[in-house]
């Protein structure tokens, strides 16, 4: 399974010719299942992403301290595990280790996916993860081995939604988008992504609070940055000017405010939220146009004033010349 995912990722990278998100923090991410980012801003070389680690090292303990007076340090052990007289070659040992790591990743993904079914009832909690583990037939004790428990579940959901969004765009919705104007394209993509949260909306405030915990903030921001970049890329933005950052910052703000608006929306099928999204995106693009027009005006005025001053100076100097 892991191999097929890797193959699919390579294929999607090759066909879509997607480039890497330029934010240093995001570039540092090991590649996930989805294509990590879309377009590159000015003067930013495309960084080469490192291969994913064979066995993920444990994450910082975060809020779980070792207790007063018990200073702690943790370490992950990745020995070859070859025992007896016949020691396996380093290559074989590494292969076995990679396989073991893949086995864990696969089990983790199965458990987290099954856990999502229990989130509407149990929330983004260990209880949901325990129920998910039971569903897939592994001991729920495995949940204790996940680095940041509930945060792992929320992060998995975010990654999975992004992958679904990319799959839908690649499966043909991308073609339909081409017939729409930019504001409609962006609105549709934001809506597609927010609709994925609809089944979990009653528990989404809990997810937001988990994401805002200090230990989880950086991953949360990276995930949102990648999401916003994918949306711009799918909307057809291939710009490489200074607007690159502005566009992503503005859309990130719109996405976050829409997400919060959605929590208080009681209209049927979140109609008010979609209206809100449409308006905000239109406003942002209109504002961008206004800024551009202001810039052109300033440029023109500058050119005009400059021309006038230059003309006056020329005359002065011409008169003074013998």
């Amino acid at each position, binding site marked *: 399974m892991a191999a097929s995912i890797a193959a699919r990722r390579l294929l999607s990278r090759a066909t879509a010719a997607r480039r890497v998100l330029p934010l240093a923090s995001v570039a540092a991410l090991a590649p996930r299942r989805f294509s990590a980012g879309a377009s590159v801003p000015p003067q930013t070389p495309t960084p080469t992403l490192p291969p994913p680690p064979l*066995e993920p090292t*444990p994450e910082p303990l975060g809020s*779980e301290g*070792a*207790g*007063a*007076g*018990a*200073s*702690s*340090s*943790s*370490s*992950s*052990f990745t*020995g070859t*595990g070859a*025992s007896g007289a016949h020691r396996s070659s380093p290559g074989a040992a590494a292969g076995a280790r990679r396989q*073991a790591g893949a*086995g*864990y990743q696969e*089990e983790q993904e199965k458990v987290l996916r099954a856990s999502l079914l229990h989130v509407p*009832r*149990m*929330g983004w*909690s*260990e*209880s949901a993860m*325990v129920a998910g*583990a039971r569903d897939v*037939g*592994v*001991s*729920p*004790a*495995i*949940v*204790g*081995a996940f680095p940041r*428990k509930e945060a792992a579940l929320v992060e998995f959901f975010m990654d999975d939604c992004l992958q679904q969004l990319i799959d839908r765009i690649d499966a043909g919705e991308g073609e339909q988008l081409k017939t729409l104007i930019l504001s409609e394209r962006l609105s549709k993509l934001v809506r597609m992504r927010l609709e994925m949260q609809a089944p979990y909306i009653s528990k989404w405030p809990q997810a937001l609070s988990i994401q805002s915990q200090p230990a989880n903030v950086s991953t949360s921001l990276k995930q949102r940055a990648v999401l916003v970049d994918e949306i711009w890329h799918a909307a057809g933005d291939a710009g490489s000017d200074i607007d690159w950052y502005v566009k992503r910052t503005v859309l990130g703000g719109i996405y976050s405010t829409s997400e919060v608006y959605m929590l208080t929306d009681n209209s049927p099928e979140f109609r008010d939220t979609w209206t809100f999204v449409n308006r905000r995106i239109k406003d942002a693009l209109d504002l961008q146009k206004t800024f551009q027009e202001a810039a052109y005006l300033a440029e023109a005025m500058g050119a005009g004033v400059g021309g006038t001053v230059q003309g006056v100076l020329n005359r002065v100097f011409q008169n003074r010349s013998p």
Partner: protein
Amino acid sequence: MTLRAAAAARRLASCTRQQSVVLGSQAEAAHLLAPGMAAGSPRAAAAFLHSHATSFGYKQVREEEKSKLVGNVFSSVASSYDVMNDLMSAGLHRLWKDRLVSKLSPFPGMKHLDVAGGTGDVAFRVLDSIKSVSRRAVGGAISDIEEDTHIYVCDINPNMLNVGKKRASERGYNEEKCLSWIQGDAEALSFEDGSMDGYTIAFGIRNVTHIEKALAEAYRVLKRGGRFLCLELSHVDVPLFKQIYDVYSFSVIPAVGELVAGDRQSYQYLVESIRRFPNQENFAQMIQEAGFERVEYENLVGGVVAIHSGLKL
């Protein structure tokens, strides 16, 4: 050379490499040799190895003798075990056990085995943790599963189990149907394959004759996805702290043992057995060789204790 003897030899060699151990004198080992065999001769060494020698502190003893000697130690200290733990660790052992249980993440419906846990310290914490999870659970969503919760406390020493049972009744755990006290050996557990969600052993694996066997048994009884956690006194690597810790270990602990428990030798053994135990990396290697994945360890108080964990997949 038998596999067991080879393992013992390998353990001895690794201990020598770490320079964290002082081997017992030849005089101490001499009683194991056949009559007329010089203590220093190669033949004597071979015979010693074939007798399945193991360590009891810094002494070399026959494997059959070790469990008896360890049994005597714990029978001797059982009554003053709690007081001595508090004195030796300045109460920190409570925090270490809390950390062990928080890493375990117990859940309602859990089948858990606590080995060498006769006093019930870890078992009570696991039980309390499960109860608190149940209280936090949404609208009794897991109350039906709660009945399946079962914690087994396994210890080879009946005196230690008696201490645990007594404490259970004092703390009101006697009514708990989910708590079972079983006399058993970590190297030959009486539980079925794949029957446990969790396995903990706190300050116990050091006293096992064959660590590899105990780890293999832990792997056997765990379900797929089950976790192994071991809290054990380990090796300090911080230079200045190491010297202070050594002085404290070899001078203070045995003296306190004599003063409080009236038993210097047992606490001398305790200190020596810590030094003979494999260091963090070597023990992690042993856990991995037993078949566990995601093997990690966490040092507490600069390596005075370490929590090793592994996952069965």
